[in-house]
Structure formats: structure tokens, C-alpha cells
């Protein structure tokens, strides 16, 4: 029905209609949230390849301790980054790995637990206050259900040395 109406709609009406569509498409972004220690992080869902468990990493010498090693993901060799150690938090035995693909670099991030995928309106993501800027965080926002504050993980920054 609506399409049929559109056929006879004025240009003005079309513009309004299109705008509504745009707003709906771009105003939110999907984030995958996970916990590390007591922090809640969000990663853009687009770059998440998969979530895997029960993979044992092969230790690689001569790298910083936050690099847990490498894992064999169906024939692909993927380095494993320990989120806790990267944030200088006491390491813990966890086995939840989020595999992400940032600029063609595929890497696994070891986290405590994965929570959910949520839509976050872009305009609710606020910049981090300069003075207590967290490492590797590009923005933060309050969860829609007020369950806490999500820190938006800046993945390129995370991988940069």
C-alpha cells in the first residue's frame, strides 16, 4: 500500500519518507558487549567474525605478555590478545575468545564473558572525558536499560603498539 501511495507522492513527501528511512538506518549501530573484570566493553558487531571457546593457545616467546600466543582456527593461525593483561589487570583463566578482523588483521581477544548484541543510537555515544581517558576506548555510553555504562573499544588503537 505504502509503495503504491509513493507512486503518486509529491517530491516533498518522498524526501520526508526517505529521510525517515535514513534516520532509521543510520541512527543506531550494533555492538557486541563483553565483560573484562568489572568493565563492560562494546565492539562494533561488524568487525566481529565469531566467538569461540575452548581453544588452547600455543605460547609464543619474545612477545609482550598480553599476547597469549597463537591459536589454530581451522587452519588459520590467529594471535590471541589477553584483554585483562592488555589493561594491566590480573590475568585469569578464561576461554572466551572474540575473533575480530580489523583492517585485514585477524586477531582473537580473550575476554571474561560475552554478554549480548545491542543496538545503540549513535548520538548517545559520548566522547571520553580527556582527563581520565581510558586506554583503547573511543567513546562511552549508558546502556539503554540503564544496566551500566558501555566503553566503546577502539580496535585499531588496541592493535597498535
Amino acid at each position: 500500500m505504502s509503495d503504491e501511495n509513493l507512486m503518486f507522492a509529491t517530491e516533498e513527501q518522498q524526501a520526508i519518507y526517505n529521510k525517515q528511512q535514513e534516520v532509521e538506518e543510520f541512527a543506531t549501530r550494533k555492538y557486541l558487549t563483553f565483560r573484562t573484570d568489572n568493565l563492560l566493553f562494546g565492539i562494533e558487531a561488524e568487525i566481529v567474525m565469531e566467538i569461540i571457546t575452548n581453544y588452547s593457545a600455543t605460547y609464543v616467546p619474545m612477545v609482550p605478555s598480553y599476547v597469549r600466543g597463537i591459536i589454530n582456527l581451522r587452519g588459520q593461525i590467529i594471535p590471541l590478545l589477553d584483554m585483562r593483561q592488555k589493561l594491566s589487570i590480573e590475568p585469569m583463566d578464561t576461554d572466551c575468545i572474540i575473533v575480530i578482523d580489523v583492517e585485514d588483521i585477524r586477531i582473537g581477544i580473550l575476554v571474561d564473558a560475552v554478554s549480548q548484541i545491542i543496538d545503540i543510537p549513535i548520538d548517545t555515544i559520548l566522547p571520553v572525558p580527556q582527563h581520565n581517558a581510558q586506554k583503547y576506548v573511543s567513546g562511552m555510553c549508558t546502556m539503554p536499560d540503564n544496566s551500566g555504562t558501555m566503553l566503546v573499544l577502539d580496535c585499531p588503537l588496541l592493535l597498535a603498539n
Partner: protein
Amino acid sequence: MANNGDSVLEMYLYETNSLLGQLDDIMLAAEQADTLSQEDVNEIFRIMHTLKGSAAMMEFEPLMTLAHRIEDLFYLIREETMSAIPEDDKPKLFNLLFKFIDYFRAQIENIELGKPLSNDIDNFVSIINTVIDKINGADAEKDESKQEAASASQSNAVNGYPYSLNIYLDEGCGMENLRAFMIVNDVKQCCSDFVTEPEDIDDTSVAPSIAKDGFKLHFSTVADRENAAKIIEPMGFVRNFEEVDNLSAAQNTETNQVEQTVNNEPVVKKEQAQPEVKEKPKETKQAPIVRAEKPKAQPAKENNSTQGHQIKQSLISVNLSKLDQLMAVVGEIVITEAMVTASPDLKGIEGVKLDNFNKSARQLRKLTDELQDISMSLRMVPVSGTFQKMRRIVRDMGQKLGKRARLTIVGEDTEIDKTIVDAISDPIMHIVRNSMDHGIEPDEKMRIAAGKNPEGEIILSAQNTGSEVIIKIEDDGGGVDSDAVLAKAIRQGLANPDVEYSKREILNFLMMPGFSTNTEVTEFSGRGVGMDVVKKNVEAVSGVVIMTSEFGKGSCTTLKIPLTTAIMDGMEVSVGDSIFTIPIQNIRQSFKATDEDIIHDAMKGEMICKMDNFYPVLRLHERYGLMPRAEKTEDGIFVWVETSEDSYCLFVDELLGEQQVVIKPLPSYLNTFGIKESGIVGCTILGDGNISLILDVSNLISSDSGYAMF
């Protein structure tokens, strides 16, 4: 085979390139010998013919014309042998050929890039023509007559006058046309039924051609000719004459030749084939090559050339990407084979007899080994092609710079991976050019004064050590003046004047971009790009460039390139919980030792004595900060490893066994930590799915950089 235009073009390019390469080789060898053997000439002729033919097929007009002209040129040379070319003109001929090759190559490149062909070949053609003329001029008597004779013989078959008499006048007798006219007149006295060729024989304009090629009388009967011969025979200025019978030319030519060798010998003609039909079809008139003093062994030559042609290479060209795919699949097969034969499921069924399984597994292993060897060898090509190209560069530069140098090639049969060959081709060229330009002294007197052979020498050698390819380019020139280089580096702000540099460090400045010791930019060097390119290209295949030089004695550039064999034999060793792979080719021996065998030095280093030599000991767990299972020396095992540079003993917990592994590169993220420099080149997936790190034996000990953890 796909029959679309592209594949035809590809074939053409491939064929033409290989022909040009062949031509280059022949010419270089010929220039060395300063002559072309008859075989070479035949070969070149054939190559030209093929080039012409395929260019015509592809409708590359200028290429065809050019090849055709060269073919003409070599037709002459083939007929006359190289002696036809005056000594002074030989270099010109060689240069012409080289220019031709270059031009052809450039055009082929244009075709490859899809650019239009340049039609500007007039210049070339005219050069070729002058050479042809020269040969003709120098050898006018011999060869043009030959051609003319061939063409003239065609007109021998003047209808109704099948019996010809070819008459040659004495050289330099003058007024040939008049003399010929006199002969004709005399002959007319005994018989009138004949025609002459050329027709207007008393015309002055035909005099030169008569002088060169004689003239012909065509008779209708044998008797007439015999009479005429009797008249001509005693004439003073007739050098030679011969009877040509167009009915039975083929059979008679030979007897004619024999009979006619001596001048003025009484000619008794015994015609074997009597004239039955006067108008014989033209096909019988085989070109009677009838010059008595030149009984050329034409058929023998033909034989020769066909023999050479029969050696056909049974080669096909395959797209490189297909080989890569094959390699990848073979790699997977090797892993899978290990997974199957070492499957953990098999361990659960102990007590069950697995004889048949084991037998088949062994067979499978053997076959996969073979498959792998073959697929690896597919990508291997000898370096000779690349090396031979350098001959050309040395030659060209030597001529332009006025230096004499020879190129000695060692180990050109060394086979290395195609990608490596491609990658080192440019670097070698740059280094050889450097050697020619900067290395070899500009003046022979300087060389003599330094007690060297006046002729410079550049040695190009290749060696495959099993784990790496070593390419060495040595010259016995002036070497590098390290003080001058340092001064220049300081001037250019590349070096710090306060720092004391080692000789090796100074030489490394040469490889910096933009660094050139030349003050002027010349055709060959001065932009400071060369060595930079060398370094970049070699590093692209993870190789290293090492320069050494002794001022006044010469310099040597070594390229070391690891063999990027995707599959290799490795020894699995364990240290604590980690498994490492040591390439088998680096392992010399493994042995047990006790604390007493270990010698300590002042720096707390450890050494061990093997075969009357001391070798340092490297404990892998200390190097990598691992928790070893074998804490005591006697619990672990030593692996004596060796590279072209180092030799030392690696202490590990345990040997797990030999295995074929497929090398996988480390994730690029890890490379940002300089993990390669700390001795890990890659990793591999073991049969049980675990990962083993592959050790780079030479980096392991030489570096103490890397990311220190403790």
C-alpha cells in the same frame, strides 16, 4: 587448448621471447669467438624465419619486415659463410644483431603492455641494407652471381629451347657485351636456331651483368649446342662454359660440374635424357646450380640444419598461479596425511593389530613425499637465464665505458624457485652495473699498475646450500673507498660525524636510498637508486644483502635468500610445554652431555667441545624464558645446529621426532614485535592440530634484540 586470441598472443610472446633469448646467447658466444660458425648462422637463420613467420601470423608488420631483412642478411651469410664478411665489419654485424634483439624485445614489451607498435623501422632496415650491400660488394662475384644464377636458370626454360649453354667470360676482360656479341655471331655461323639471354646482348647496359654472371644461349637441339660449344671452346676470353639441360637438369648438373671444372677442356656431351617432348612442364627445371668452381654441398647443409631442428624440447608453459594452487593442495595433503596416520583415535585401540593400516600408511607417506618433491621441483628454474643476461650487460657497458671485462659464471645450473629468480634478476643487474661502472678501473694502466690482469673480471656465482640460496657478485676492481663513503654519508646527513662506524656499517650507507658516490648522473649510475632497489627487492623475498670490499682489491656483494619452500623436513623438539621445529638441514648432530662437558667462559657463556672445536651452547628455555622439564644438563639433549655463518649447540628438553611440516607465516600482528629477529620464522600445524614454532637457527643466536620479557 583454448583457441581464443589471448592464448595465441601469449604463445607468441612466450615463443618470441625464448627465441630472442636463444639469439642473444648465440650472439654473445659468437662475439667471444669473433665469428659465427655455420651452425650458428643456420640457427640464426631459422630463428629469424620463425620470428618472421609468427610476426606475420600476428600481423605485426614492422617486426615481420625487420625479421625478414635480417633473414635475407643471414641467407647471404649462410651461402657465403662468415668469411664473406670483412674482418672490420664483424663488430658492426654483431652490434646490428644486438640492436635488433633489443629493438625486438622493446617491441615485444610494448605488445605485452598493450601499447601500439612503433613503425619506425626504416632506419633499421637501411642499416641492414647497407650491411647486405657491403657483403654483396665485398663478395659480389661470389654470391650475387649465385642468386642471379638461380634466377637466371628459371629463364633457361625458354619455350622450345631447352638446351642451354651458360657462358662465363674471363674476369676483367672488358667490353663484355661486345665480346658476348662476337660469340653470338660466331655461333650463328653454324646454327641459327637459338636465342640469347639477355636478349639484346650487345647493349652496353648489360655488360656488368654479363661480366658477373655470364650469358646464356638457348638451343632447340642437342646437336646445335654441341656445335656451338666447339666454336666457343677455343675462344680466348671465355673463362668457362657449361651446358645446362632443362629436361634433365637434375641428373646432369653433377656430371656437368665435374666435367667443367677445368677450363677449356674438350666438352663431350653425353645426353642421358633425350629430348622427346620439347615443351616440358616447368616443374622439372630444378634450379641448376651450375658454377663449376663452386660445387657447394647444399644438400649436406640442409641435413645439418634439419638435424639441429629435431632436438625439440618437450616443454610446456604453465601459469604460475596453477602451480601455486597445486603447492597449496599438496601442503594440505601432507598435513592431512600426518593427521590420519597419527590420529589420536588409533591410540585408543591398543592391542588391535594394525599391520595393514601401518603398511598402507607407509605407502601413503612415500607417495606424498614423492608428490611433494615433484610439485616443488616444478617451480624450480636454473639461474642460468638470469646470469646469461648479465653477459650482455657486461658487454654493452664495457663497450660504452671503454673497459675490458669478462664475466665468469659459476654454478649457473643452480635451481631456485621461480619467484626468487624473478626477484633477484634486477638486483643482480644493478650490482653488475655497479661493478662495471664503479668497480672496474676506468683505465687499464691503473689495473696494470696495481698488478692486476688488464682485463677486469666479474664473477657471478650461485649456490644452493639447502636452506638458502647464495648469490655472489665479485669484481676485482678498485673496491670501495670507505673513507670517501663515510665522508659523503656525513655530508648527506646520513651518518653522524661523532660516531665511529665499522666497515660494514659504512658499506651499508651505499644501500641507502639516494646515496651515490658519483657526483654526476650518468647513463648508468649516479641517481643513488641502484643499491636501494637491490636491498628492497632482496628483502621482499626475506633475503639479506651483504657487502664486503677491500679498497684497491675489489668488492663482493652477497645476496642470501632463504628458500621459501612451503614444505620442509623438520625436527620437532620440546621445551617445557612448547614444541619447536628445527629445520633438518640445519641439524648436524644431536647428543647427550653432562655438566662436566660444558666449559664456562668469563662472560658466563657456555661452550662445548665437539670434534676438536668449541661451540657455544644456547639453552632454548633461557633464551625464550620457558620453564624447562629438563632442568639438569643430563636430562635434556643437545642439538648441534649449523648455518652458513654460525654453528652452535641448542639445548632442548627432548627430541620428539622428524616430521614434514608446512610452513605457515606468523600472523602479521606478531611481526610488529620483531619476532622474526628473535629466531622464529613461522609456524606449522602438527598432525594433532597443535601449533609448533619454526626456529630460524641463524637469527636465534645472532640477535639479542626482540621483546625481552624478563
